[in-house]
């Protein structure tokens, strides 16, 4: 056990999970928390409520495709959507460093306003703190969100043959942040994919029996989400390497940086595990939605002697996709 909290504990990989289990789960034990979903879901009167929270520390706070405010709304709204809930109300807390430019704060908040309008949610309560210069790096935002699960969606047991879908190109947010943080002087067709997943709620409603589970692959990327799914089942995962959608510019930048897009954060994508027989129908419905037009089936769960995630390429080569142990990636969300 580490005596001090290190940056690696915030990476979203193995060390983060360990810290959460050893300190937070150990002390805050209850069935909702230990369900380990992106949101907690519980009955309140006649309604099935989902409730989630997230904090945002991204650097830089303004990046190609968005800013910390956009992330703060999308991140929390999306966690509700992947729990099957229709997002309704958000809270937000700001901790601001003394000397932060007012213009920047206004821009961030205006973006949050616009995202809330798009998502049809309201920020109904909030808090503001200002701290001394040097005690915080510019700004930190927390958002919590509440939604109602109207469809009655709940997670289902994963079976062999279940297909894995992703709603668009991977690794775009993480890569965009990395380019900024490593001061790479490149121009190209890349930007954060930060976006709302609310348009996909109609698919969740329509196919709630067929969708076994869903997640948005933020910190740690698609690979980390797939490992989380695999922990809940006896089956391993076989991915189809050439089907994994990666924009050419994202592929190129990751090659330069020596990173793998499978581990880079997405902030506007959904990973779904779908019953084999319904996978094509779910695929077509997602593709009919503008923000889901690049949805692909990228793999499936399968019976294996040694449970693992591997990716098979077109000429028969295979590689293991291990769990993210550590990374030196900059903060991305």
């Amino acid at each position, binding site marked *: 056990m580490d005596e*001090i909290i*290190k*940056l690696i504990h915030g990476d979203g990989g193995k060390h983060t999970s360990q810290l959460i289990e050893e300190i937070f789960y150990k002390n805050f034990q209850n069935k909702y928390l230990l369900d380990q979903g992106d949101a907690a879901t519980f009955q309140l009167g006649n309604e099935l409520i989902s409730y989630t929270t997230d904090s945002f520390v991204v650097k830089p706070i303004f990046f190609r495709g968005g800013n910390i405010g956009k992330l703060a709304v999308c991140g929390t709204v999306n966690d509700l959507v992947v729990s099957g809930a229709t997002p309704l109300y958000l809270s937000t807390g700001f901790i601001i460093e003394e000397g932060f430019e007012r213009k920047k704060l206004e821009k961030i908040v205006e973006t949050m306003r616009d995202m809330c309008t798009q998502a049809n949610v309201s920020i109904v309560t909030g808090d503001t703190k200002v701290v001394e210069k040097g005690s915080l790096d510019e700004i930190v935002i927390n958002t919590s969100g509440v939604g109602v699960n109207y469809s009655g969606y709940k997670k289902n047991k994963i079976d062999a043959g279940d297909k894995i879908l992703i709603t668009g190109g991977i690794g775009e947010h993480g890569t965009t942040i990395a380019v900024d943080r*490593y*001061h*790479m002087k490149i121009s190209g067709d890349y930007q954060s994919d930060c976006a709302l997943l609310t348009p996909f709620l109609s698919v969740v409603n329509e196919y709630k029996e067929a969708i076994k589970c869903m997640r948005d692959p933020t910190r740690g990327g698609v690979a980390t989400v797939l490992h989380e799914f695999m922990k809940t089942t006896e089956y391993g995962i076989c991915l189809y390497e050439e089907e994994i959608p990666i924009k050419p510019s994202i592929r190129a930048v990751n090659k330069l*940086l*020596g990173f793998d897009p499978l581990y880079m954060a997405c902030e506007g994508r959904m990973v779904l595990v779908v019953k084999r027989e319904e996978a094509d129908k779910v695929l077509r419905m997602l593709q009919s939605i503008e923000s889901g037009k690049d949805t692909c089936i990228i793999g499936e769960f399968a019976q294996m002697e040694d449970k693992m995630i*591997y990716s098979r*390429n*077109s*000429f*028969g*080569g*295979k*590689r*293991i996709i*291990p769990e993210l*142990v*550590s990374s*030196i990636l900059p903060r991305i969300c």
Partner: protein
Amino acid sequence: MGKYLRIEEMLSSIHNMDGDSYTIMEVCGSHTEAIKKYGIGELVKPQIRLLSGPGCPVCVTSEDYIDKAIELTKVKDIIITTFGDMLRVKGRKENLLEQKEKGRDIRVLYTPIDAIDLARAHMNKEIIFLAVGFETTAPIIALAIKKARQEKLHNLSFYIGLKRMKPILRYIFNDSDHGIKGLICPGHVASVVGEHYFEFISKEYGISGVIAGFESKDVVQALYYLSLNKEKSGYFNNLYRQCVSYQGNQKAIELMEEVFDDCDAKLRGIGIIEGAGFHIQKEYVEYDASVRYQLEEHNVNKMTDKEINKCQDIKRNKCVCSDILLGKSEPKDCPLYGGKCTPEHPVGPCMISGEGSCAISYKYLV
């Protein structure tokens, strides 16, 4: 000649090869990564046995170098700058990442040219760049040193840990036990030093060589051509002509020769190799961190007793890194691999860096 084969066709041809298993080595971290990432090593067995040589400059950086870099982090008003993959490599006890977590000023740069911007922006601080790499990296380090002098920057220096490929290859091939019949020559190094730099392997040692790129098709093609010409002793071909010319990048070579001369180098897990290092020439000595900070010259022409003992220690612990680095063994031959030695608890250099053979094997091996 002239017909473009698909990967499956080349693999099929390799599988139809007669005779004993053909041992081929590659000496480039990017080739090691490509082979593992595409699962090529498994696909060409048993006709081809692929070995990974000392192509990871971070893996072969001595513990001494890391320890001295760690000492430098403790000096007041110093910023240590480095390539990212150096952070996790352990010296005798600790690594630079652990120093960073303690609050020392260590910054990851993508290019050494950024160290110049940093030096300009922090005139009250001393900036040191940890210059590790092969001939691929040496020209850009030389360029950074020249630029620093042109701009009359006096608060920037470079701690040189660069290595030369040719003396290391000679060291491997001079060992009569090596068993290597073919070499995939490192495409990036070759793009700098030229095709002619590698011809010695066929002319002097009768070993076949192919210069190759890094896509899956490039690597399979390299193996295909080597296996096709298995009977020809000393076959040599440049399959990366889009990047590699016969003479190499003259401008880059001139830069290297202007700023550096050669010296002996200590390679982790292997020992001293004559002429395998780079040393800043007298004209640019102001930018040599080992002189500026009076670090004991780490490329000394002898191993200390401590280091000899350490190499023995490693052997006693049954770590076979030195054999793996020299292509005599594979990661799975090591009794510690995957058990006592994993990426989280590495014992030897091959597991320490992300580009090391054992680390890559562990990451990808099915």
